[in-house]
Each structure stands twice: as structure tokens, then as C-alpha cells.
């Protein structure tokens, strides 16, 4: 399944949920947030949120800033 993750086209093996996508990307940091097609996804919904072909996903975290 093709997803656009953080602006990059990615071919994902898992065709499932946000939880599965994070696992495949090996993202274990708990201080992250995900937006799916420009909507913020609550953490509690990661297990139940299905991903579809061509979805635009943003995965963000805290970095240094002023």
C-alpha cells in the first residue's frame, strides 16, 4: 500500500492501522503525534484507524525551538 508519510511516498507492507504503520516504521517514541489527511488522530484511536491507499500521514515530535 502506498502512503505519503511526511511528504515521502512509502510502500508499506502492512495494510492496516496506524499502530501497525508505526510498528513497521520502527517508531517507538511515545511522544509523537499523527495526523491523517490533515486531521489529528487521537492516540487512543491508533488501533482502530484504518489506512487507505494514498493517505497522507504526518508523524511529528518535539524538537528544539524558541
Amino acid at each position, binding site marked *: 500500500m502506498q502512503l505519503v508519510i511526511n511528504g515521502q511516498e512509502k510502500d508499506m507492507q502492512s495494510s492496516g492501522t496506524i499502530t501497525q504503520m508505526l510498528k513497521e516504521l520502527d517508531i517507538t517514541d511515545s*511522544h509523537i503525534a499523527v495526523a491523517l489527511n490533515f486531521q489529528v488522530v487521537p492516540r487512543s484511536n491508533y488501533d482502530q484507524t484504518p489506512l487507505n491507499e494514498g493517505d497522507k500521514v504526518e*508523524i*511529528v515530535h518535539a524538537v*528544539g525551538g524558541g
Partner: protein
Amino acid sequence: METAVETESKLKIADKVFSSRLIVGTGKYASFEQNRQALEISGAEMVTVAVRRIELDKTKESILNYIDPEKYTLLPNTAGCYSVKETVMTAQLAREAGLGNFVKVEVIGDEKTLFPDNEATLEASKLLVKDGFHVLPYCSDDVVLCKKLEDIGCSAVMPLAAPIGSGLGIRNPYNLKLILEAVTVPVIVDAGVGTASDASRAMELGVDGLLMNTAIAGAKDPLKMAQAMKLAVQSGRLAYEAGRIPKKLYATASSPIDGLIDL
């Protein structure tokens, strides 16, 4: 009998009380470790962070490993946002990432000066207040705007003293004074401070706090500057609370005139 050390009063923003009136940023440090040390030395209790995309295919250490959540309140910013939509979404992502309920609303209106888009700042702040955030907007040093930001429920207003990262110091103390008179929420000077005397000067005007990043991170020795800023903010606030003497043109002797020896 020992005389107690005088300390400045505390700063209350929304439901939180801070002993330090200095808020510091976490950008531009040489390393996370240097950043951690500068935070500690500065005595700050509130720390800004930005929200950015994770770099895929890279294992990156998180800055949050260097910011003790027991010691610091995080103030995620919306730096880099140019629209209301981006700003609201960035704030919501920050909250979802576990960075807390405070947000520094920063909507940039001009790339060269990084001056805020005040109209968009007001609109984004309104939406985020409604969404339950404690909103601290970076804004122009405009009294009318600051009053409006207070009226819509912002927890503080954060007028700039000079452009972000410019180090030009307090360019318009009169505007800051007008804002201080007009609003009851804390007034935090955000951006423009270059060195310790700038920080003292702002605090002596009576502003409630000071947010800075580049002045510390960009100094030749950031750790020494962190200490300098801590002292400057403290001394400036103490001087404000102490109440300075009026300025006069002529001298007034400090020593008594009576009892001079007669030669």
C-alpha cells in the same frame, strides 16, 4: 540576627506558578547536553519546543530525554506556521504528542522580519482557547491587539521587543508600558533580547516575564549567558518591585551636611 534574602515575587500563568520569570527556548544549541545544562543554569521552569516531522529512516534521540518533565513545563510553539489552519493543527499535534496544554501561538506574517500575522494570531488563539489550551501568543507590541488577546481568553500576551533573533534589545519601552497598563494577564516579552542589560531593562519596566532563545544559545559561551540572564531577570524584577528613585538633574548629597569639621 540573620537578614532574610530578598526574592522577587512569583509568576502565575493560567493555573501554574513559576519561581523563575525566565522562559527559555531549546533551539540552536550545539548539543542536547549543552542545552540541558543551559536550561538548568538559567533556572527557567518553562521551556519552549517546536513540533516537526520525524525524520524517517533515522534513529534520532529525542530532545525530551534532556528536559526533565518534573522540573519544566513545556511550552510547544507553532513556529513556522503562516496560517490559522496550520497553527491550530500544530498545537493539537503537540498536545496529542503529550507536550501538555500550554501553547505558544506563533503565526508568522513576514519571512524576513518574522513579524507575527496579528490577525491570524488572534483568530488561531480564539480557536485554541475554545479547544481548552492555555494560549500564550507571540504578538506585536500593540496595546489594542494585546487587549483583544486578553479578552478572548489568552493566558498571557507575549509582545516582541525586537525581531526574533535580532538581539536589538528593547526597541519600544513605551509600548510595553502601555500594554502593562492595559491588560491584567501576564505580559511576557518574547524575542529581541541580546544581552543581560536588555533583560534587566525589560524586567525593570515591570513586564512579568521574558522568553528568550538565541540570546543564550547563540552566545559564545551559552552556559555563562544562561547564568547572566538568570541574574539579569532576577535583578531587573527586584529593582522593579523595589521601586527606583526618580531621576533628577542635580546632585543630592548622600552624606549628612551637618557635623562637618570646621577647618
